[in-house]
């Protein structure tokens, strides 16, 4: 009877302890990556290769999504702004929403599901097929050779992808607002120019995406490295990467926004 009553608390306790353990584990993993990053810098072609897989191959989804998000912003923004007779401010609205929030957050979410999951699956399968063990036995540290280049590739790609997302969004807003609806193109750009601050809006947005890139890639490589080396284990790890990344991006966004703006 008592056991049944206490079971939920025991489960809660177990869950908390497990979460803290994993948090400690991932922190030590980050430390290990940083300690083993020298090779990523001296053999930069390893990082470039991963930038190709994580960043360049994500371009399509980032560019197309950015364009559509901008077009939706243009439509929604126009219908709201026109009620207050300030449709001219559309350019500022689109640019500020994208630069401050939507660009970094949505690009990071897309990056997590496109490239983060791929990294987890790849590293997990390398573990399952003993490739990481083989590397270790050949006296090559897999953290230096496999994990660190992917981590830095993610950190470097994310701000660029977010910036591209923003550019495409602003063009999408221009297309809907100016070309389809017929607002004045000059005021679209001049309102944007007058209201967007380089430091507050653009740089802060980039800093956000730098954090998101580090968080998503760290989670992705960690989950891959920590995966149970079976088919089911790798699939569970891939799912965890996407879910954890999404939650961490949104939580981190709140914290960073509170500090920045």
């Amino acid at each position, binding site marked *: 009877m008592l056991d049944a009553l206490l079971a939920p608390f025991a489960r809660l306790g177990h869950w908390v302890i497990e979460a803290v353990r994993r948090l400690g584990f991932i922190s030590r993993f980050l430390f290990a990556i940083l300690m083993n990053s020298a090779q990523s810098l001296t053999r930069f072609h390893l990082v470039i290769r991963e930038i190709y897989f994580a960043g360049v191959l994500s371009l399509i989804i980032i560019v197309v999504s950015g364009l559509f998000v901008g077009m939706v912003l243009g439509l929604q923004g126009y219908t709201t702004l026109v009620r207050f007779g300030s449709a001219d401010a559309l350019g500022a609205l689109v640019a500020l929403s994208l630069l401050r929030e939507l660009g970094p957050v949505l690009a990071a979410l897309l990056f997590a599901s496109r490239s983060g999951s791929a990294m987890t699956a*790849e590293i997990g*399968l*390398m573990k399952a*097929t*003993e*490739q990481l*063990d*083989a*590397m*270790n*036995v*050949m*006296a*090559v*540290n897999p953290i230096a*050779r496999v994990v660190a280049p992917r981590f830095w590739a993610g950190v470097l790609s994310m701000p660029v992808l977010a910036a591209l997302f923003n550019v495409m969004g602003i063009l999408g807003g221009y297309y809907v607002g100016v070309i389809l609806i017929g607002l004045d193109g000059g005021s679209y750009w001049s309102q944007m120019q007058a209201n967007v601050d380089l430091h507050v809006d653009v740089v802060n947005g980039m800093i956000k995406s730098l954090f998101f890139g580090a968080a998503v890639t760290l989670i992705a490589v960690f989950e891959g490295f920590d995966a149970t080396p079976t088919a089911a284990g790798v699939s569970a790890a891939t799912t965890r990467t996407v879910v954890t990344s999404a939650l961490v991006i949104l939580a981190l966004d709140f914290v960073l926004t509170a500090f920045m703006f």
Partner: protein
Amino acid sequence: MSFAYGERTILERINLKIPRGRLVAIMGGSGSGKTTLLRLISGQVAPQQGEIIVDGRHVEHMSERELFEHRRRMGMLFQFGALFTDLSVFDNVAFPIREHARLPDAMVRDLVLMKLAAVGLRGTQDMMPSELSGGMARRIALARAIALDPQLMLYDEPFTGLDPISLGAIAHLIKKLNDALGTTSVMVTHDVERSLNIVDYVYFVAGGTLIAEGTPDEVRASASPWVRQFVRGEADGPVHLAYPATTTLSADLGLGDAHA
């Protein structure tokens, strides 16, 4: 030397010696802890008790740097090859050379082609591992393992899952490499017939302990019922096929009381 994964004891009080330049097989059934022995020798896991000495140096006390130094003089062939699937055959074999030696590209190329020729697969260098058959992949993995001319070669089940011809080719290669390079070789296997033909000495492991040893001729003539069962592949003998369950089958099926 003893070793346990958590509470589960895998190896208990094992003591074996592998002389320099010899080809030694460690045989035993699946799950007898043979592969763990290789992981102990390569320093991937450390024993709870006892010591592992390779070339006069204690593996169990090595720092990470020393371990990597130790492994640089060692090659290991994994059960399924463990080729890097994102690299071509050439890059796979070149991997240890590029990681550990700063050589000009032309010299790396020559070395790789020589290693590929040694395993009889020159001409496959541009293929990807997914295009190779199991036997070819195993031979490429062997070429990669010997890329840096190791003093100690570890083979983890080199014969598993191969057709008779590839199997013969691998066995021949292992023997040839051992003789030609003067490498000390440790082979973990349960392929008795094939191994007895090529090795110098055999250790039998069962239930985590060493139960028999000898040269191939001694093993073939062995009076030990366990060794005879293993060598002849009989289903019944000192080793039982069934896992020692704590309940009876009829009890598990819910028939226990009716019959009792």
